[in-house]
């Protein structure tokens, strides 16, 4: 009886544990992803960092400029995340005379910060 109970409780706890793990892994990944996106948004909107609103209309931002196109439907425009990241890091790749700041090469944003901004922009 004791052995049986023990078995059950082990089974239950294993089940509970695996259920827990099964949920917990994607949950924490989502949370990390969300935090990155939030940080990316902060960097994009910060006047001393990306200041993307100077030129682009971006959902959630106020008083946007209109020098660049509104940043919408970004997943459709940039199915390839790396292409989006490149555009943000150095817009001169696509337009040598662009007014858009070469954020990467001019070290206005670090590589890590560009990743975060690109993650946020990709959600738009």
């Amino acid at each position, binding site marked *: 009886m004791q052995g049986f109970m023990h078995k059950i409780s082990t089974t239950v706890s294993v089940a509970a544990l695996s259920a827990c793990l099964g949920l917990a892994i994607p949950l924490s990944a989502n949370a990390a992803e969300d935090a990155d996106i939030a940080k990316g948004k902060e960097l994009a909107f910060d006047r001393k960092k990306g200041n993307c609103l100077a030129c682009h209309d971006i959902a959630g931002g106020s*008083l946007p400029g*209109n020098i660049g196109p509104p940043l919408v439907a970004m997943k459709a425009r940039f199915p390839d995340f790396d292409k989006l990241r490149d555009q943000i890091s150095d817009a001169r790749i696509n*337009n040598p005379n662009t*007014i858009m700041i070469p954020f990467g090469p*001019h070290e206005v944003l670090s590589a890590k910060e560009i990743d975060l901004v690109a993650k946020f922009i990709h959600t738009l």
Partner: protein
Amino acid sequence: MKKYLAALSALLMLITPIASQASPEDDLKSFRSYFTDKFPEVPMADFVNGVYSVDKASREQWEEFEEFPAYEIYISKGEDLFNKKFANGKNFASCFPNYKKGIRQNYPRFDKASGKIVTMEGDINKCLTDNGEKAYGWKKGKIAYVGAYLAYMSRGNLINVKTPSSPAELAAYNRGKKHFYSKRGQLNMSCADCHYNNAGNKIRADILSPALGHPSGFPVYRNKWAGGSKGDGMGTLHRRYGGCNKQVRAKPFKAQSDEYKALEYFHTYMSNGLEVNGPSLRK
């Protein structure tokens, strides 16, 4: 979008080499037609009003402010300084015999003897030092007051920078032109990026003024320049140049440096034939 971008960069590639070899007269023609094409509803003479020539929304308020303009007292201060006797008994009138007819429209000019560009501010301070007086600071304060008075006396006169033709004049002109079109600073932007290609567009909440007509209203009273260490609102064109260089995180040149004088020479030549309307009010 791609198509548009490709067309744009192709166009730029076409324009750049031609522009760098063009004569000042050709530059002037293409500079104007660019703006008249871009803003067909703006009469040429109205470009002297800076951003208000293209920003209908803030124009009305600006016109109201212009009825009792904040620069008025600085015109009178400038007049007082202008007439005040130097220690040697002379005054500014001895250096600017034509001030009543207006002289602002003739600046900047190229001085053959020294091979340098001479600005109105340069002549104001030269008058002081030639007469044994201490020169004014270059960007704000008394230099802007006397400049405001001289500009006021010149209102309605047409900007008349002599077309650069000698090799030395062309060298100075091309230096200024190069400054205007070169990207600079950590943010990598040129004057032309903002005041030519994107004139009329918004950078954040600010509408960008066309470069055509820019120098006509200087010195200006700017709200942004009023208060604390920034001064009483009055400032010169070179003070503005420094501010715009700083915006793109570029190290500004000194006011009245050869670099800014060359920029003023190019920038003002592009506005030839427009009226002097300084001093003016700006945000």
